[in-house]
Each structure stands twice: as C-alpha cells, then as structure tokens.
C-alpha cells in the first residue's frame, strides 16, 4: 500500500473573485510515496511543494487529477486520523496552555478521552516541555512553539508524518529530536514526508526524493541516484545535484 499517491495532478488557484484566469501552482504531477520510507520533497521557492502537501491533507482540492491517502481518495477524511502534520509557522490559539493544545488537537484527531492525558504528558516530556505544560503558549518562544507543533503532530500516533520545513526555529537538540523521530518512524514501517530546504537533513534522512520545479516533477528517485554524477557515476554533493535542476528553464506549455 502507498501512503500517498498523486496521479496527473494539477492545481490552479483563483486569482481573484472576478478574475477568469488562475495561478497555476502544480502541473501534471505524478508521485508515489511508499509506506515505510522517509520521502523528501525538494524544490526552490514557489515550486509547489506546500500545495502538494495541502492537497494530501485535504486543505485544498486538485483542479485535475487524483490524489489518494492510504489508498483512499482524499475526500475520505477518516484517513486523516492516521496523518500527523507539522509546519514551519504554527499559530496555536494563544489562550491555550501546552497541555490544552495537545488535548484539543488530539480530541479532534479522534484520540479517546482516557488516552489523551497519558499521550499528552509523554509527548510533552519527549519534546522537553513537560515543565511548561500549564503555561499559556503566548509566553512561548518560536522554538518552543515548534516543539509543541511536533508533539501535536504525534498525538494521534500517525502512520504518515508530514513535516513541512520542520526545523525552522528549532535549536540543535530539537533538530536531533526530529531526526530521531524520523528514524523511529522508518524503523516502525511508518512513513515520513519531509519538505525542507536544509539539504544536510534531507541527505541524512531520506531514502527517496522528488524535486519539484515550477510546479512539475523535475526528478524522482532514490537519494543515491540523485547524488550520482551522470557523467562519471561518482557521488557528488546534494547541492551540486540540485543546482542544475533548480535552474533549468521552465518547460513551455
């Protein structure tokens, strides 16, 4: 079974209420994210990475094509209970404490009332916020909010963890924690979809990658294939592999 499937997917955002034209974000994207892998999604800014994630999370609907989660169409929201999502700029309700945030999002994810406090305490301990459980998050730093965002993404014990620029604002220990969690997911046969501009962590964690450029898939394959020099077959730094892909001219319509 695949964790995520995109088949000839395109997405055009409305340009305005009265505009007939739209803004194309992704075009004819076909991708498969297999179970039990750490899958990296790379690309320059405005490549369509976040749009792809939004489609997978049912936050937006594709204009054309088919998107599936765990083999089910994304219109079936029940499969979202198996997904955890962390992004770079969390804005949790500022009137809640860290413990209340986890209870709220866990409750909405379908975690039972008996199970919630146990999981919330364990996760706050894991992300290093156990001593700040009752503190309003309006007093939290960006790094602390990111740690809470990670705990929130794990509260429903997901099979697919989507991390969109997750290390933004995290300190060294936070980044190590995130890498440990990604490795644990892989070892448990679960999936991580990682969207990041931090090449070192992508290189270290990902088995497979897809590179999006101007809304299209410019590369899809293993990390080893991406970093292999096509001329000599020798390994090369990831940055050297990505530069020609990022700067390739946009294909004419």
């Amino acid at each position, binding site marked *: 079974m695949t964790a995520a499937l995109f088949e000839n997917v395109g997405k055009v*955002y409305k340009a305005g209420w009265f505009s007939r034209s739209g803004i194309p974000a992704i075009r004819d994207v076909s991708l498969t994210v297999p179970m039990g892998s750490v899958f990296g999604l790379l690309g320059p800014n405005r490549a369509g990475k976040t749009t792809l994630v939004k489609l997978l999370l049912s936050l937006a609907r594709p204009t054309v094509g088919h998107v599936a989660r765990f083999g089910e169409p994304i219109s079936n929201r029940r499969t979202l209970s198996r997904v955890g999502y962390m992004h770079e700029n969390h*804005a949790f*309700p500022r009137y809640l404490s860290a413990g209340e945030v986890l209870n709220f999002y866990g409750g909405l994810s379908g975690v039972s009332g008996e199970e919630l406090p146990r999981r919330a305490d364990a996760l706050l301990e894991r992300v290093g916020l156990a001593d700040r459980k009752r503190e309003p998050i309006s007093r939290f730093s960006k790094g602390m909010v990111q740690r809470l965002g990670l705990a929130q993404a794990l509260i429903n014990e997901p099979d697919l963890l989507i991390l969109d620029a997750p290390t933004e604002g995290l300190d060294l220990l936070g980044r190590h924690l995130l890498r440990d969690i990604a490795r644990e997911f892989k070892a448990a046969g679960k999936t991580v979809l990682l969207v990041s501009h931090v090449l070192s962590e992508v290189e270290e964690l990902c088995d497979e990658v897809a590179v999006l450029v101007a809304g299209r898939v410019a590369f899809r394959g293993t990390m080893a294939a991406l970093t292999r020099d096509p001329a000599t077959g020798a390994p090369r730094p990831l940055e050297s592999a990505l530069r020609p892909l990022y700067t390739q001219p946009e294909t004419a319509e």
Partner: protein
Amino acid sequence: MNLPDIVRCVRWMIRDTFRQSIATKLFYVMVALIAVCTLLCASVRVTGDVAPTTYDWEVPALIPKDEAEKLGMDRVKNDGVRVISGEVSFGFGATKVPLGRTREDAVHFIQTWLAGWLADTAGVLLALLWTAGFLPTFLEPQSATVLLAKPAPRWAILLGKYLGVVGFVGFQATLFIGCTWVALGCATGVWSAAYWLAVPLLVLNFAVFYSVSVFLSVWTRSTVASAFGTLMFWMLCWLVDYSHLRMLGQPSGSLAPLSQFLMDAGYWILPKPLDLSGIFFDAMNAEALSSKPQELKVAESGGLHHPEWSVASSLAFAAGVLGLSAYEFKMTDY
C-alpha cells in the same frame, strides 16, 4: 465519519470557544456590566405603591401628592381620585421617581427596560461586535491548516464554533437575567417568572444575526467585514421589519403591487428583530407601562401579525445562512 465522532468534534469546538471567550478582555467588560446592572437592581426600593385595580378595565384617576394637597386631600378622596404617594428609588435612595402604579408594575417596567432595551439592543449588538473576530482569528491560514488537517468534517467544526459562541452568549444572557431577577426579587419582593422569557429570546435574536457574522467571516476572513457587515445587516432588518409593520397599518392598495411584493418578501425572508422584541413586550404585559407602536396595534387587531411565524422564519433564515456558510467553508482552499 460516524455520529459519535461528529458529536466529539462539536463538543471539542464548543469547549475551545468557551475558553476563547473567557480569554478575551471584553468578557470581563460584559461581566462588569452585569455586575453594575445587578447592583442597580439590588438598590431599587418601592414604597407606597397604589393598590391594584379590581377589574382589568378599571383605569384609576391619579394625581401627584403635592397637587392633591393643593386641592385638599378630603375633596380628592371623596371624588375617588387616587393620590400618587409612593416612589421608586434607585441607587439606595440616590434617585427617586414618583410611583403611580403597583409594586409589580414598577418592577415589570424596570425588567422590560433591562431586557427589552438594554440587553436586546445594546447587549446583542455588543455581543455581535465581541464575537465577530472569533472565526476570522480561527481561520487565519497558520491556525486553520493544522485544524483542518484533522479528520473532523469542516461543517462540524463550523457548527461547533457557532454553537460554542451562541452557547456562551446564552450563558451571559442567563447570568444577566438571573442576577438582575434575583436582585430585584430580593429588593422588592416581586418575583416575575415572565422575565425569564428574555433568555431564549435574547439567544434567538443573537443566534440569527450571528449566522450572518459566520457567513461573512467564512467568506471574507476579515473581522472588520464581519463586525460591520453584521451591524449594517441588523439595521437593514430592523428597518424592513418596522416598514412592514407600518405598511400593515395602511389601507390596502396604498402601495404599488411590486413594492408591496418586495416589502412582503423582504419581511418574510429576513430576520425580524422588532417582532422578537414584541414577543417579550407582550409576555411582560408591558402595554400597561409603555405604549405599543400604533402600527403594531393595528396589525395585531387585524390578525395580520403572527409572532410564531416571525420566530420560525427567522430561524429558517439562520439555518439557510449557516448551510451556505458550511458550503463556502467546504469549498475554500487553505
């Protein structure tokens, strides 16, 4: 998603909305206003009230005490004219008003003013302004993306938020009516059960207009558009309601058929804030205290005014607007 999951989602949203409401500064302003009104009610004293009339049709002739003294008390009493000798005092005697009615009428008058004018107009408008920012804040992209990536259907999230806000305003209305009822009862010995009818009517009035606020929030994601749009809409509804009542008092055929049709259609489609106030006015038997608008009297005597239909059509409007909001919310990309 099955029913228990939906109920759980709605319950979590209601709980979160209560938490959000308590965290706003305006909540404490509302509590302070309730405390001031309760204190005002507790300070009311009624003395020397006039005995009630024996028959409903009996209208006692009343004159103030100083005039009676000028004319001669014996002469006044012999003529069967009652002397206004009582007074209602507020602020523990700081302000006094002559009383020419029964103690019950005096308390009903205060309650009608508190619930019918202060809470139903100023209170509802203040609550609409207060809550207008709840949904736009909640729908900011950075907060909405995590929330909407949960398995709960979007309509259930919106319904939970709506019920949470209406429930919280209902709690405030109950607190206001309950506190002022107890304070007035303790101060005057008058315990009017009809006063409690104000709670469902206030909640209904707010719930109907808050549905418009929800729609504007989902559509524009702007607090300003939601707040001012809802206030403008409230004024429009009040004007249409009032104009319709005035038209009922006019002889038939005085309006062009198309204008008549548009007026009737506008009246029946839109919420009717004036009609809802009228229901409370009748329940409090407030006609003995302040005159009902002539237009409403004419409409009632002609059998043209149906409060039950006003309530039903206002509720239908709210349900329709909420349905539209849920559709818009479902179709929006985040």
